[in-house]
């Protein structure tokens, strides 16, 4: 009898915390105004929707565009990518995990250790040579590693982690 009462009290407490926490956390991140191109869920502390952070293109680019000129196994020459640094985005959502599962529009899925973002200036690129990445150009978001400045990245695992047509991240 008492345990059931305890459980009920705990539920009420939880509802209060969630109900109050939602609007409080939403203060940290603005609401997207345009079409959402990226959702981040999992072990994050800053959200703008129930349990997740949603980004439209403008919100993402407002975090600060960084330039990265590099070759990739799938492009000609050394294009210049522009996008938000992965580590900066992780800080913006208050990621607390050790890895992130990246899911693409084509249902491709890959797991990336967060340490990668600390070690390398990995980009969530939204532009290539100044042009916005469309779905046809592996957009709207393409995870780009600095292949040119780090020759050791030319391997199969890094290819697998270079997710294009990225649609959501789940921090673990």
């Amino acid at each position, binding site marked *: 009898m008492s345990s059931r009462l305890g459980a009920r009290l705990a539920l009420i407490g939880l509802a209060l915390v969630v109900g109050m926490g939602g609007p409080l956390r939403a203060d940290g991140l603005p609401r997207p105004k345009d079409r959402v191109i990226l959702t981040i869920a999992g072990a994050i502390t800053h959200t703008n929707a129930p349990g997740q952070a949603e980004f439209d293109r403008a919100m993402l680019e407002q975090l600060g565009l960084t330039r990265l000129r590099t070759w*990739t196994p799938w492009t000609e020459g050394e294009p210049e990518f522009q996008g938000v640094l992965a580590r900066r985005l992780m800080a913006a959502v208050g990621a607390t995990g050790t890895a992130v599962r990246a899911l693409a*529009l084509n249902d491709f899925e890959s797991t990336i250790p967060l340490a990668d973002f600390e070690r390398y200036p990995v980009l969530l690129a939204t532009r290539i040579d100044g042009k916005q990445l469309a779905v*046809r150009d592996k957009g709207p978001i393409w995870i780009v590693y600095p292949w040119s400045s780090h020759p050791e990245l030319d391997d199969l695992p890094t290819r697998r982690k270079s997710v294009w047509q990225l649609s959501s991240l789940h921090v673990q």
Partner: protein
Amino acid sequence: MAVELPARAVKTLLRPGWFRSYGLLAAVALLFTGFLVLSFYKLRQQHEVELQDVGMNFWLVSQADYELQRLRHALDGYALGHPDYDREALMQRFDIFWSRLPLLLEGTDSALIQESGAAVVTRLIDALEGIEPDLQALTPHDAAGHRRLAAEFDRMLEPLHRLVVDVESLGGIRTQEQRLRRRQLDFEHAGYLLGILASGGLLIGLLVRESRRTRALLVEATAARARIEHLAHHDPLTDLPNRLLFADRLDQALRRADRAGEFVALHCLDVDHFKAVNDCYGHVVGDRLLIAVAERIATCLRQSDTLARLGGDEFAIIQGGLREPGAALQLAERVLAAFGEAISLDALRISTALSIGVSLYPTHATTPAALQSFADDALYRAKSNGRSCFCLWTPDGMVGASQVPAG
């Protein structure tokens, strides 16, 4: 991979003894193992080059093929008014498929396709550009438009499928650089294979040689042991059993006689006046005479009798398996008679005679020592009786049968 051996190492290798056989063997075995490991490593390298070349290309083509089929599925869903497939979802599938095609034309991972299938891919992109306005204008439940677009997409499946098959069999098609690298790897691997063959052959040869040598040594050792054994039991001059073997044979003969209830006769023989021969003609002739005497005595014996040289000019015969004692006297007579004719040694003719003492078992004695002692006594008596005769031991003064042969 030339290895220069220092002069000292060569000397050590050529030094007789265990190191030459086992050191060389170990070195060749090591070489063989080394070639095996290197060859395995090369094979893996070859395999990796192959996988990297074909694997990436294959992945990219099969992904494009997969996305086309999903697009085709989305088209059906949209045309039939399925709620999961609105225009936006359909166009997204269209864009995703489109995005897979440039991947087949640029970058390092599609090098093989770029060589063999670029034209096919370019035609596919052109076709997509042509289809795009029609796809955007398509409304749900437009059966004719759906059929036309579906036919367009289905036409694309076939060349893509062929690309997949082509890439699978693309072993030979690659850039000049890759071709050279591949040939280099093939060449190196062939070298290592030759190394395996050569060192393996050498190893087998060495092992065969080693086993032959061991077998020869074994045969030699066995023969040497047999010779030593023979020398220990035989007189080197006449090759007759010596005192040691004689004692052994006598024991055996007595035991056999016990079992069978038979007699054994022991004859002690002595060459008369041998010392004179030695003094007169020298030791060489004396030795040759002893050999001739032994041969002549032997002609009187059966296979089962034992003739031994006990030392100097003294011989003994063990005559076993006797049913009655008389046979002993017959043998002594036969031996004396055999010396009726002089012995010829080259130009020399030496008249030789023997004295013989005979004792019988178990009639006279029941131990080998006593039997021998009685035979010696009888021999002494024969000599006293004027030599060239035989004497059978008797308990009372040993007279017995005695005979002086002719000559």
